[in-house]
């Protein structure tokens, strides 16, 4: 093993437990030169306490499986360099907020995805596989707006950051609403009105208070707050028109 630069160490406290309760436990992890928060967690599981549970898959910021609360803030851990988040050589790692905990650092993400679907976040075809593809001008305004939110990795960082989700468990949350907004702007989507009415119900986009935490923490630098605002406007306009 190449264990260069191991003289210094980090004080890491990691939340251990389930939805029924738990506590922080402390570990000492050697500092390495290229080390992400996921690597710290891995080190603990592989070498200090092999009962620790956490989740990851791609390890490069594409799958959105590895998000945790690091020093109080939600982050993708595979792309968070330890140097950018440690304070006084201390790290506090907890599961994401606003989702039920399965064990230790793993959460049950079902509510997040259920809401994604509930917000109407599914494409409804306007053409079938034997039809030619619809030409779409990449420079058109609608396409640009839709593209702005389409690269979401559904990591639930925004969902965890949002205080409105914390206060109002029915609220669909920023990511689901952002997906709904891309569909509203997608010329190929056939169910624009279905989406607009789905997000107009009592847990819908109108509950957002523009805290902006979603936009602030989104690791891929999307702007769900703007998308939600777009939905508020569109739903009102469509209500006034009808």
């Amino acid at each position, binding site marked *: 093993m190449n264990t260069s630069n191991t003289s210094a160490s980090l004080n890491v406290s990691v939340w251990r437990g389930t939805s029924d309760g738990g506590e922080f436990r402390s570990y000492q992890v050697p500092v390495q030169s290229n080390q992400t928060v996921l690597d710290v967690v891995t080190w603990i599981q592989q070498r200090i306490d092999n009962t620790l549970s956490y989740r990851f898959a791609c390890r490069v910021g594409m799958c959105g499986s590895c998000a945790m*609360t690091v020093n*109080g803030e939600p982050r993708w851990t595979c792309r968070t360099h330890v140097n950018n988040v440690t304070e006084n050589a201390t790290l*506090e790692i*907890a599961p994401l907020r606003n989702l039920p905990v399965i064990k230790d650092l793993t959460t049950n993400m079902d509510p997040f995805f259920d809401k994604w679907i509930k917000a109407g976040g599914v494409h409804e075809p306007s053409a079938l596989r034997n039809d030619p593809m619809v030409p779409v001008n990449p420079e058109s305004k609608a396409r640009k707006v839709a593209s702005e939110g389409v690269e979401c990795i559904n990591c639930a960082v925004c969902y965890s950051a949002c205080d409105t989700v914390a206060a109002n468990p029915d609220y669909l949350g920023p990511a689901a609403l952002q997906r709904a907004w891309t569909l509203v702007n997608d010329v190929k989507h056939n169910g624009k009105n279905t989406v607009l009415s789905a997000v107009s119900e009592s847990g819908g986009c109108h509950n957002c208070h523009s805290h902006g935490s979603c936009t602030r923490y989104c690791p891929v630098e999307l702007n769900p707050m703007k998308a939600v*605002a777009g939905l508020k406007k569109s739903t009102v306009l469509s209500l006034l028109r009808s």
Partner: protein
Amino acid sequence: MIKPGRSNPLWLAFVLHRLSGVVLALFLPLHFYVLSLALTSPAALDNFLAFSDLFVVKVAETLLVLLLAVHLFGGLRLMAMEWLPWTDRQKSLAAASVALGAGVACMFFLKVI
């Protein structure tokens, strides 16, 4: 544990807006009641107005107007963010609106004293 987002200027703007809204909503029935006194006993109203000449009461009233201004501009800011083409400068907008609110209140305060 630190709650995410609480160091965010937009979150602070939200809290300010909410607290001002709630305080205003609590104050409003009182305000209405006092004004209704005009109907039932103008003397009581005068008494009250005299009472409101007291410095502390002045400060409290100033605070309320300040809250109203904060809430008003906060609300306008919010609606601008929701409805108008959104710019990345909204954070400064938030700050500016609070400053404006404070400005109005100060003006009021200066004229009063």
